[in-house]
């Protein structure tokens, strides 16, 4: 019981379903139904649990669209945590920004598709 009180008082507001629902709400309304989109994030590769968890949460939030863990789709959703982006990496993946939805959520277009 005390563990629960402890968890309740320390829950980070930026992770978890509620935070993702809020961040991705505008994008979800903007996506065509049943679309398949790619995914790009600035999560460190070493932190597999967080990157995997955030990818699953993005998918959960954007249903009925299907989110693929690749940047090879014509449209990608970007789940960033800062505005200091690795422009070289985005360029290497042929990604060009399309629209910002606030809270570091973007859509990108793959120019090779």
């Amino acid at each position, binding site marked *: 019981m005390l563990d629960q009180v402890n968890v309740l008082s320390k829950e980070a507001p930026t992770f978890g379903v509620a935070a993702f629902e809020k961040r991705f709400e505008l994008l979800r309304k903007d996506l065509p139904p049943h679309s398949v989109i790619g995914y790009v994030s600035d999560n460190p590769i070493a932190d597999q649990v967080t990157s995997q968890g955030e990818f699953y949460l993005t998918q959960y939030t954007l*249903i009925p669209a*299907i989110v693929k863990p690749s940047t090879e789709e014509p449209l990608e959703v970007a789940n960033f945590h800062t505005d200091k982006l690795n422009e070289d990496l985005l360029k290497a993946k042929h990604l060009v920004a399309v629209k910002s939805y606030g809270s570091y959520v973007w859509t990108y277009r793959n120019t090779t598709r």
Partner: protein
Amino acid sequence: MKYVCMALVWLAGIGVARWLFPATLRWSLHNAWLLSLGAGVGIGIASSIYFICLALAGPNVIVLASAEGAFLLVALALGFAAKQRSAILEWGDGPTPPGYLITLLLLAAAVALGIFIATSVNKPHGEWDAWSIWNLRARFLYRGGDSWRDAFSTLLPWSHPDYPLLIPGIVAMSWTLSHLESTAAPIATAFLFTLGAVGLLISTLGVLRGKTQSFVAGILLLGTVSFCQIGAYQYADIPLSFYFLASLSLLCLQDRYPSDLRFTILAGLTAGLGAWTKNEGLLFIVALVLARAIAVIRYGNRATLLPQFLRMAAGLIAPLAVVAFFKVRYAPANDLLSTAPRDILKHAIDIGRWVTVIEGFVTSFFSLGTFLVPIVLVLALYWYLVRFHVEERDRLSLDMLLLTIGFMLAGNFAVYILLPGDVEWQVRTSVERLLLQVWPATLLAFFLAANRLQLTAPKVVVEKGKPAKRSGKAARRAAETR
């Protein structure tokens, strides 16, 4: 409306259970047992109906509402019109529980409820598996419209699209009928299963071993923090533990009331609904059938084996048909079962895998339930103090319980060893949940075997001129304890 759907599903389940085992409408052990059983029966049948409607008529609310409405009406009509034709379940023999034990049970229930509510408030969408598997699939079914089959897309291999649909189905059904995608549906489902499992354990042991024994078992299950937490995380392991317990406890009651084969029919139904909950449910059916056959051959009347298996098949057939329809028509190949035989052999001779899995099981036996003192030691101490006393009539039931639990553990152990993936990660993230699946059934077996508790001092009768002696009942009990 958010909770009305789930309440009606529960009511329909009670109707089905009451139809098979009617009793006068009043507060009794029999009706508490029906209330507990009804939760899983109603949810399982309603979820199956949802999937059949979706598969045959698409996302059509009118068809779904008609089918589920018909189920409710028929269940209520059958349940409340049924005349008593079977034995009424009543408290078994045993000492009256002292006041402090009842207080402890109520306290444990209050703490468990507190944990469930706090966890649900903190995580209304559940934990990792809930939003990456179960509620994710429910959202696809509900939001997908005509493209509901996207729920099983091969583009989502990490979400195990071959897992059966009892939980996603009932959640999506509730959202569809209430026109509201609310977290109340998965929370209410999780609550009914968690509460139902506790009610089922207490009421079954109440019949088999009396009030005191059943209250102690109930306190232990309610005190298993991770049982309440994982229930509130909206994982499928607690619903599965409900169906395992329901099937096994129904067969135990079958042994107590051998002439009434309806217990076995319902045991077949609940075992089938377990297979509709999670893939481990299929392993459970094999384990249960095998264990029942061995136990009946060893301790029972062999002539009853065929009639019992026919009744069990009658209960199993409908949910298994739904599972088969889903697996054949919609589910992609299971990632574990698509392993090449060469890789299976390679894993079988990998000593490192054996060490990891054995270590994981042993560690989890001690950490299970997040008790202050490891529960294995608590049970060992309990056994040391009261010892086991298995009555002749309970041998068949106990043998079946132990064999089924043993087969399940062995089966899960083999899955870890033989099949693909990072075994260290698999064990770390799932072994406690696998143990929780059989935990209520393990408590049933333990308290079926444990000697009756002597919680109050036996009355001493003093007669003039003679040494003090125990009263008749107390003397009998003392003799039994020896």
